[in-house]
Structures are given as C-alpha cells and as structure tokens.
C-alpha cells in the first residue's frame, strides 16, 4: 500500500472517531475538544492533497477562531454541564435504521457517479495555485462578485451579532 493511502486511512479514522466522540461525550468541553481533533484531521487531509493554503487556513480559522468561539459558548453555561440521564432513547433503533438507510443511499449515489475513479487533472507546471486563487478572486471575469459579496456577508454577521447582543442587554 502506498504510504499516502496509509496516512489517509489513519486520518480518516481520526476524523470519524473524533466526530463520534463529539456526539457521545457526556462533558461539553470534551466534546468541543474532540471537535478540534476532527478539524485538525481535516487540515491533515488538505495537506495530503497539497492544498497548503487550505490546510493552514483550516487551522487558523476553524481551530483558532471557531473552536475558540464554541468553547466560549460552552463556558457561558454552568460549569457542571454533564449529561446525567441515559444517553439513548428507548426507541433508539428507529433513527439508527434511518441513518443506515441514508448512509447506504449516499454510498450508492457516490459510487454510481460516472467520474468516481477519475484522477484529478495535474496542476500545470509553472502555475502557482495560491497566485491563481488570488487572481481568480479579484479578476472581473473571475470571482470578484462573490468576493465582495462575502465581505457583505461578514458585515451582516457582525451586524446580526451586535443586534442580538444589544437586545439581550436592554
């Protein structure tokens, strides 16, 4: 087996196991920290695909900002936020069955795609992916409109947060 494949499997296992623990952890802080592990696994996946910029941005934005926000949100509640009751409902087999059916459907759809075993086109030599991304973001023929609209989206998020905070204060 190619070493890349081994690392991919380890990474995928890390992500899946961390995601599982996020959901079944009884302690909210532990759940948030398992989320950090899952996000780090995604960053490793990006690195495996040679997407340097995306790997580093994943750590900076997701782990450095969003995970910290999650942790702050969890700490806003009482400290002892342990789940005390039983973790499974009595009719737990219904959602489990539904989940398995959805998984089977998704797997079938993915493998039924005609291009599933095509390899991605190699990046042409001499093209720096990061610069190409930059040029695409600001070229009028490229993605400049989504670029500017995303800043308005961020502005909307900021205004929304301020509004919620003000109404809570008053």
């Amino acid at each position: 087996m190619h070493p890349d494949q081994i690392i991919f499997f380890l990474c995928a296992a890390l992500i899946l196991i961390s995601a599982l623990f996020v959901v079944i952890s009884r302690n909210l802080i532990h759940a948030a920290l398992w989320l950090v592990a899952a996000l780090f696994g995604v960053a490793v996946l990006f690195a495996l695909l040679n997407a340097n910029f995306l790997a580093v941005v994943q750590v900076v934005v997701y782990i450095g900002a969003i995970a910290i926000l999650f942790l702050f949100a969890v700490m806003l509640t009482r400290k002892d936020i342990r789940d005390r009751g039983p973790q499974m409902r009595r009719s737990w087999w219904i959602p489990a069955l539904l989940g398995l059916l959805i998984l089977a459907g998704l797997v079938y759809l993915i493998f039924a795609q005609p291009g599933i075993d095509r390899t991605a086109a190699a990046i042409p030599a001499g093209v720096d992916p990061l610069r190409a991304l930059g040029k695409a973001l600001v070229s009028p023929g490229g993605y400049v409109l989504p670029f500017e609209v995303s800043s308005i989206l961020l502005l909307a998020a900021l205004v929304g947060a301020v509004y919620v905070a003000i109404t809570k204060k008053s």
Partner: protein
Amino acid sequence: MQNEWLYIGLFLIIGIIVPIVPLVFAALVSPHKPNPIKQSTYECGIETVGDSWVQFKAQYYIFALVFLVFDVETVFLFPWALSLNQLPIFAVLEGILFIGILVTGLVYTWRKGMLEWV
C-alpha cells in the same frame, strides 16, 4: 504528498514527544504523597469560597465574534496580496473595497458600544 508536509508531520510528532519525555521522567522521579489539603485548589491561602466557576462575561463572546469576522477577512486578503503584482490597479481597489466594507462593520460595532468592557 510533498516532502515539506512529511517534514512538518514528523516535526509535529517529535514536538509532541520532546515535552512528554521530561514529564514522564518527572512522574517517575518525583515523590507522590497526595493529601487533601495539598490538593485543594488555591485561593490566596484561604479556604475556597463558593463554586469554582466564574460568571463568563458576555463581552468575551462579543470580542471573540468580532475577531472571527476579521480573521476570515484577513484570510481572504492573503491570496489577494499575492496576486497584486500580476493584475492592474483595479485589483488593489477591489481589495480596498473589501477592507472598507469590514471597517464600516467595525465602526458600526464601535458606535453601538459593543467594544466597551462594561
């Protein structure tokens, strides 16, 4: 996978092992005599009063949120910065428009008093 990420991955592993070695060594070498008074949490030398949980001020959350918005903005600016050499001045103005919209957001937050620490 390029060799550079292999190097960084190995660096991370060594970086995790290097602090653990002295800690394990210390755990083996140091005395281990727990008693309830030693293990009680510290509160300036007196008995702890009340829960060890402090009301988390909502202000911390607001600052973290504003930080998140600006963090995403600066991350968008990195590819823009690298493309400046190869594009006309229009690209610079687009980037400044992007920054300007978010500075407007900062000014709005400022004027609404969300950046105060009350």
